[in-house]
């Protein structure tokens, strides 16, 4: 028992960052739950709120996925907000003015985003212009281009099919409807998969001779995660089911987590950020990888732009303002290093969720936008200070 306790403490110390983030998210949710019920308002964790957290922050998570790759490679992209606005405007122009169907608009808009990313990545990767400068220029250029394309006006409304991207829910072929049958099935499957992946990683650790997480801690944590997923799944199912946005997010998160941790190219991006010269001398074509990261970022910015446009049901010149800062903040709260070479997808997602939960919680509590900004800024600072302090110990 004593050694078990010691093992847990040692393990928590070694994985303070990962577990700390998770605990911070839980703590923030609990804090808001208490504060909200203290004000006599309806429960914080009710189905519409949970749905809204994903609807309102989906774009931040999507942008943060791309931003993580950019930051891991040792760069930054300040243009994503403007690019999201511009691609949203492009999507509006294609849909409303040219009357193209959704299945043509989505790939075309993604291609425009990819081209914009390529245009910026070219200067960063092959000319070695600092990404801060290139994307600062891009931020101005594409904000201006948005104004130009929209002629200073809003374009909308959109057909139902386009709106479904952000506000739709998955159908329920089980016919249950209340609660939403397919949502329950997916939630159950997801819980199973998460536990299976955890068990497999544990087994692999033991094979490698790495001291695995203490058994008690593993099951404790898995139980909490499974309970949280079951709770969210049940709440969603009893409301309107799984939102389309959450399906897109889940697919992207799994895809990017796999890419960064389990593929050759993903590993190489970390190497470029960790030590570019050593990576180069190991035969890695560093320029091409940096270029790829920017193309990828452009496409994700286009996806985020379309989602926001669909949610607002109109493309506006002011869309996307400040998105770049939300995405960058999520990445750093999620534990990535400014110098590049480190950071995990799961951390970034938790970072974005922390920001999202705080936005929503403070809005429900009626905290003014002035205080909200100040508090969010301090949370970002605190998260990074916590990181630096841990490393210097």
């Amino acid at each position, binding site marked *: 028992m004593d050694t078990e306790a010691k093992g847990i403490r040692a393990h928590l110390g070694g994985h303070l960052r990962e577990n700390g983030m998770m605990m911070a998210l839980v703590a923030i949710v609990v804090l808001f739950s208490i504060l909200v019920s203290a004000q006599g308002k309806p429960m914080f964790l009710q189905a519409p709120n949970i749905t809204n957290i994903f609807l309102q922050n989906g774009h931040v998570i999507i942008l943060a996925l791309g931003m993580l790759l950019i930051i891991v490679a040792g760069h930054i992209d300040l243009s994503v907000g403007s690019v999201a606005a511009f691609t949203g405007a492009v999507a509006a122009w294609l849909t409303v003015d040219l009357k193209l169907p959704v299945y043509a608009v989505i790939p075309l808009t993604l291609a425009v985003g990819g081209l914009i990313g390529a245009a910026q990545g070219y200067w960063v990767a092959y000319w070695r212009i600092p990404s801060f400068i290139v994307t600062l220029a891009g931020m101005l250029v594409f904000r201006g281009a948005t104004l130009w394309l929209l002629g200073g006006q809003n374009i909308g409304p959109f057909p139902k099919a386009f709106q479904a991207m952000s506000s739709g829910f998955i159908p329920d072929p089980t016919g249950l409807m209340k609660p939403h049958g397919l949502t329950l099935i997916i939630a159950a499957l997801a819980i199973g998969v998460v536990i299976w992946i955890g068990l497999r990683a544990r087994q692999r650790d033991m094979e*490698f001779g790495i001291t695995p997480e203490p058994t008690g801690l593993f099951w404790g944590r898995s139980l909490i995660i499974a309970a949280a997923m079951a709770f969210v799944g049940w709440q969603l199912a009893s409301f309107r089911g799984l939102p389309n946005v959450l399906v897109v997010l889940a697919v992207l998160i799994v895809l990017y987590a796999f890419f960064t941790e389990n593929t*050759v190219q993903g590993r190489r991006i970390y*190497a470029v950020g960790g030590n570019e010269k050593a990576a180069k*001398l*190991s035969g890695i074509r560093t320029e091409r990888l940096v270029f790829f990261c920017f193309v990828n970022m452009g496409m994700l910015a286009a996806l985020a732009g379309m989602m926001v446009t669909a949610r607002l049901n109109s493309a506006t010149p002011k869309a996307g303002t400040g998105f770049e800062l939300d995405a960058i903040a999520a990445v750093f709260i999620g534990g990535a290093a400014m110098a590049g070479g480190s950071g995990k997808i799961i951390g970034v997602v938790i970072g974005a969720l922390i920001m999202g939960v705080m936005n929503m919680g403070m809005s429900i509590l009626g905290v003014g936008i002035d205080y909200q900004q100040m508090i969010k800024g301090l949370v970002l600072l605190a998260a990074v200070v916590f990181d630096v302090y841990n490393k210097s110990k």
Partner: protein
Amino acid sequence: MTTLLEMREITKVFPGVKALDRVSLTVEAGEIHAICGENGAGKSTLMKVLSGVYPHGSFDGEITYDGAALRSRTIRDSEDKGIIIIHQELALIPLLSIAENLFMGNEVASRGVISWPMAFNKTAELLRRVGLNEPPGAVVGKLGVGKQQLIEIAKALSKNVKLLILDEPTAALQEADADRLLGLMLDLKAQGVTQIMISHKLNEIARVADRITVIRDGTSVSTLTRAEISEDRIIRDMVGRDMAHRYPERSLNPGDMLFEVEGWSCWHPEQAGRQMIKGVSLNVRKGEIVGIAGLMGTGRTELAMSIFGQSYGKRHQGQVRMSGQPVDVSTVTKAIGAGISYVTEDRKALGLILEEPILKNISLANLAGVARRSVLDKRREAQVAEGYRRQLSIRTPGVQQKVVNLSGGNQQKVVLSKWLFTDPQLLILDEPTRGIDVGAKFEIYTIMKDLAEQGRGVLMISSEMPELLGMCDRIYVMNEGRIVGELSRAEASQERIMGLILKGEGKVA
């Protein structure tokens, strides 16, 4: 003559290393005193003690300067007494003007406001003294290295220098610039400025030095007067020591021709027209360990890196053959594909990702070897790393350990593992034992021996002559971008290598 400086029994200890062991040095007022010694002999450490880089109290021994005990706490203390050092790497700020650089930290100002007319006048006068014909407002970065060296000297003069220390002042200079600098040193001597010069170049020493002190392995071996200076004597004093380490026994039986370079040339990446590698040809047979000797900065690393995927330089010329077949080495990937590996001399900056674990560093140059269709097989990656950990006895609790936590010798084994995992035919090892302790050195030598016995070729670049003599079947000697000699194991000796280096292009064996 009066004695300006006397350093008595200076001993300086770094953790685990005695850099200086009771070194004594006497410098007379008005002389040019040369200090000679191999790389790592302790010359620079001695000068850092003198110039206050290492403060009084961090070393043992006494320094008497200008008739009084010298107890510098900072560089500034030494400078205030007129002791100024000009380092090998110039400390000028390239984007500022000559005048701004000259009075950096010492501005011509009253109450914090700089008087530029006065600064420019003083600059112009100092530039006249060093014979540099440039306007005081010229931007330093646009001037050549030779002119920058003169500016450093002008800067020293602006501080009323009495004892000027020049650390290999001509190492980066072209012939004409070096000549001008030596002339200036003699002028300054005539003006009464005492100088200490660290140099390897015997012809320069013979031209300007009044006396010379030879340092070897952290002790002063001898001080010779002008009349006693002779090449043979200096060389013997510089290298005359017993083999400090042991080397694994090797049987020499080189196989077929493996690696040939012919007429290899390349130019400096930034300074157009500066040829760094000049028509180098060399070869390595299977099972052979071949050395490249030479002092630092003679183009050995540049040669290796330019061959390895053109990682250094511009306008590459020449041919590389593996087992008789010409190979394309224009990118690192192609060089690796051709069976060539290059283990860098600077493992922290160029060889390792310090914040990543051992296993990720080992797989880095051959990720395809631990992946199936671009998806990493982490089990295989760990097995590979574990295999090298055992084979090269990397001392670590596990392959998940970050390399930043390893000792120098174990880090070097990780870099070696990384390259062994690419299954190279030829390994180019650049200073493979730099900065690692004696025990680990022996292990690295043993690994090299094993590689040769497996039929691979090893090309070893080293500044440590004993290890070249102890390990190599043949040794090429390189100087100023050229191969200036080739010695077989039987012919090679420290004296002959040093002779070839110092005499430069004279003898080609």
